[in-house]
Each structure stands twice: as structure tokens, then as C-alpha cells.
């Protein structure tokens, strides 16, 4: 018996989300009572021995050329799961991970729960896992009725922990089906942490008046090392790129810190951000609904306050 973690490595680089998933898998293994934690990488990957440090007891690699294809990757992961006798398979709740989850559940005859946000429980031989539903307005606990389970893990659920030491990766051979998809181009913003993984997020809305004013938001984000986000109308009119739109119909995030400037806090916006650990709201209207969901609030003109906050951070970092 084992727990298998698919460690995603876009562009050959392991991400923080992969380390998180491995530490999470290490804890799940303890919960279900197995010492075997298998981390799998697909394609050329640098530095996968470090997955041992984060809790893997075995690091496997399947050599593979070509881009992501949920059908091909599912086949690879399922073959490794069969060889490793995996009872639980964990993927990230990312674009690729979400495309794999349902397929894996069919292939492995394993009940699936997507976007889990806490460690599962294991009682009477049954796994139970919790996830956000109704766009994080509530949580639902699912019971898995099959002997095997597949989970996708929400980013930022548990921090990666160093619980072991480096392990040399081993190659493992599986049958690779022919892909019916050709990846022509991949564009990823370089340098910044993608929103679903970001621990710190600075977001702004219509209160910004226009795209030309976003400099102060970018400066604050840079000072913090945060990723930028926005409300939906702002992305709709093209002030900001689509992938920055958070909320019910955008990206759902749960960073440690969410700073919102010039966003009213409509219920559809809150739906995507209200599981953030700490929310700071900057709005000139004391009646803005966002204050009800905030931990800290500043009632003021954002054009004054945001640069002042950036300056205060700079001062704090200098100390």
C-alpha cells in the first residue's frame, strides 16, 4: 500500500505546490497507516531528489517528451499507481491536476474529491475529505465509498515541511499511449507566483479609475513580493489581463494575505477570496460591503493610502 503524489513540473521546474502536495501526502500516509510515500515526476525535471526532503520515501520519474495531455498523463500515473499499490493518489488543484483528477478516478475506480483543503480523516476504513463549496461560502465533507481515493489539493492548504532527506530519483518504464493533442505554445508569466499558489495578493477594482493608475498597485505588490489580482469588471473592460480576475467566475484563491483596494466586495467577488487567511480592505466608502469580510480596514482614498502603505513596508523592511 502507498500514497502516490504526482509532482507537477511545468517547464521542468518543480513548483512549491508540488512540495506542498508531497508533505500533504506524507501526512495522509500516516493517517491511513502506510510508510510508503511515492512522488512521481513526468518528463525532464531538475532537482527532484528534494522531494525526499518534503516527505517522499521514493521518487520516480517517467521519461516522456511532449506537452501535457490529460489522457497520456492519466495513463502514466495510473500505471505507476498500480505498480506502487497506491490507495490514495494526490494531484494539485491546478489546471493540469484538475484535468487529471476525474480521468484518474475512472481509470483507478477510485472515488474523487476535488480541491480538498484539509487533511482527510480515516475511520472505519473510510476516507473523508473536506472542500469548499458554493464558492467557499461553505464546506462539504465527502465520504469516499471506494477502497481507493483520488484527491486534488487546493494550493496553500499546508506549507511544505522538511521531514526527511534528499532521495535519488529512479526511472520507471511504463507504456506511453500516443497523444492526440499537440501543444503548440505555452506562455507563462515569468518570475511571478501564479495566483492560485500565491501567499500574498494585492488586488484592485473599479476604484482605480483606469489602467494607467495601476503603477501604485504594482509597486505595493513588488514591495511585498505579492501577486496582483483584480475584480471582474476591471478584467472585462481590459484594464487587466483575464487571468488576474478573482471571484466566483474567476480564479478562487486562498492566500495568507489579500489586500483589496477600490473593490466594493460584491458577493461574487467575495466568493473567490473569502477563504484568504487575512483580508485588508482599502475603500473610501465606509459602507462598502467588503469591510464586513475584512480583518483590517482603511477608510480612505486609495490614491493616498496605497503609496503610503508601500512606503511603510519599505521602512519596515529596512529595519
Amino acid at each position, binding site marked *: 500500500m502507498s500514497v502516490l503524489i504526482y509532482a507537477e513540473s511545468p517547464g521542468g521546474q518543480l513548483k512549491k505546490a508540488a512540495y506542498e502536495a508531497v508533505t500533504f501526502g506524507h501526512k495522509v500516509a500516516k493517517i491511513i497507516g502506510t510508510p510508503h510515500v511515492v512522488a512521481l515526476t513526468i518528463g525532464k525535471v531538475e532537482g527532484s531528489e528534494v522531494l525526499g526532503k518534503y516527505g517522499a520515501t521514493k521518487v520516480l520519474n517517467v521519461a516522456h517528451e511532449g*506537452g501535457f495531455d490529460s489522457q497520456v498523463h492519466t495513463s502514466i500515473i495510473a500505471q505507476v499507481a498500480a505498480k506502487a499499490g497506491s490507495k490514495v493518489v494526490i494531484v494539485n488543484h491546478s489546471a493540469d491536476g484538475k484535468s487529471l483528477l476525474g480521468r484518474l478516478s475512472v481509470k483507478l475506480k477510485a472515488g474523487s474529491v476535488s480541491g480538498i483543503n484539509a487533511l482527510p480523516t480515516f475511520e472505519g476504513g473510510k476516507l473523508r475529505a473536506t472542500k469548499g463549496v*458554493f464558492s467557499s461560502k461553505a464546506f462539504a465533507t465527502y465520504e469516499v465509498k471506494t477502497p481507493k481515493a483520488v484527491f486534488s489539493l487546493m494550493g496553500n492548504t499546508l506549507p511544505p515541511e522538511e521531514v526527511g532527506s534528499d532521495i535519488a530519483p529512479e526511472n520507471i518504464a511504463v507504456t506511453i499511449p500516443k497523444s492526440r493533442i499537440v501543444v503548440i505554445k505555452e506562455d507563462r508569466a515569468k518570475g511571478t507566483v501564479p495566483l492560485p499558489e500565491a501567499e500574498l495578493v494585492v488586488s484592485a477594482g473599479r476604484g482605480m479609475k483606469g489602467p494607467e493608475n495601476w503603477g501604485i498597485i504594482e509597486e505595493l505588490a513588488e514591495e511585498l513580493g505579492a501577486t496582483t489580482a483584480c475584480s471582474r469588471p476591471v478584467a472585462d473592460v481590459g484594464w487587466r489581463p483575464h487571468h488576474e480576475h478573482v471571484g466566483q467566475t474567476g480564479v478562487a484563491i486562498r492566500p495568507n494575505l489579500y489586500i483589496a483596494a477600490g473593490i466594493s466586495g460584491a458577493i461574487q467577488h467575495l466568493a473567490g477570496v473569502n477563504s484568504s487567511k487575512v483580508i485588508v480592505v482599502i475603500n473610501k466608502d465606509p459602507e462598502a460591503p467588503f469591510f464586513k469580510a475584512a480583518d*483590517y480596514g482603511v477608510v480612505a482614498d486609495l490614491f493616498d493610502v496605497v503609496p503610503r502603505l508601500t512606503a511603510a513596508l519599505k521602512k519596515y523592511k529596512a529595519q
Partner: protein
Amino acid sequence: MKLLVCVSKTPETTTKVSFTDGNTQFNTSGVQYIMNPYDEWYALVRAVELKEKAAGSKVTLVNVGPASNDSILRKGLAIGADQALRVNAEPSSAYFVAAQIAQYAKGMDIVFTGKETIDYNGSEVAAILAELLDLPYISYATDLQVEGNVATVTREIEGGKEIVKVQMPFVVSASKGMAEQRIPNMRGIMQAKRKPLVVREPKKMSDPVSIVQYTLPAPKSAVKLVDPEDMDELVRLLHEEAKVI
């Protein structure tokens, strides 16, 4: 082209969420339902646009749900689908839904779903369906162009996008950007009344997972207001009290 669009029903986006029966059932009293936005605004509209460009094409809607969902299907017909099929069953899990739809998806050129339903936020049905049908699956598409029997699809990935080519048939889930929302007009609404909507009984099967408990998030304590003149204080609070920086 034969195009299948999976549409679901979700509570309206401003719905107050509560539960009954010891927090094991979603409280449906007073809840207004809508067609899931991703299904309606993007998947369906793009399918209709493709149909309008390729003579002889047909858009079929499919829903797994009770009779009260017929209004959702009629709306989809008013937006431009040609026919609708409802599998008469409560959608008790993503697997159940996908397995029901799979029976009717054979022979389709493109199967569309939304990115996710905005109630259970599973994002699972499309991938399960693709595996059951042994088809390629492109998730979170923001653009879909078809030429001959090959589609070029742009999909969202973390912090960016990916462009892929795929041969029909395939499954695709639609994200924002794939099309522009269409409001049904009077003519569409009148025509929808005469378009076929058939109902089929479900294939029996058990659910691999089920919800045993709901919980509501702990209520937030009141917001702490910080003096706008004193941003050093906010930084101190974030560092010392909230411990997030």
C-alpha cells in the same frame, strides 16, 4: 458538426447558503436557480456560433436533473440550441452525471462543458466524461477555432495560457473569454417552445463519493479599522498580530 453541450443548474450567485437536517442537506427554500454561467455564457454560445458557421450542424443540450430543470433547457434552446435531452435523476455525484451523459455522447464531434459548476465547484464532470469516452480533453478553454476536423484551442494554465491542436472528437470545458454572453430574444424564446426536449430515465449506478456533512465558515470578527495616516501601524499589525508578513 454534432455538438453536445452539458448544462447544469446552479443557485443564483447572490444566494445565501444554509443547510437543513443537521447540516446534511442544502436548504433549497427560496433559492433562485440559473443556468451555470460557464455553461450558458461560454460553452453554449460558442457551440451555437460554430453551428451558425457550418451548415448542417446541430447543437444538442444535455442535463442530468429533475423536471424543474426543463426551464433551464428551454432557455438554452432559446439561445440557439436545436434540441435538448434531460436524464431524469438527481445529479448525486460528478461520476453519476458523467456516466449518464456518456451514454448519449457517442458520435458527437465536440462535447462542451463549463469550467465548473459554481455550487460544488468540482470541475470534474468533463474529465470523467472524457475518460469514459476515451477522448482527449482540453480544460478551461478561452478560445476555440475549428478548421476541418482539427480544433485549435487556447487553454488557461497557472499565470498564463497554452495553445493546443486536437483532432475531433474531443471534450472541452469552457472558461471566460470563449464567447460573449447572449441574451435570448423574443423570436428565440418562441422557437424554443417548439424544439424537441426529450426525457430519459437514468441508468442505475452507485455513487463513488457522497457528501456527509456541510459546515459554514466561522463568522468573521468585526473589522479592525486602521488610521489612514498611520500605515506603519497596519504593517505592524500584519507582522505582529496577523503574522502574515
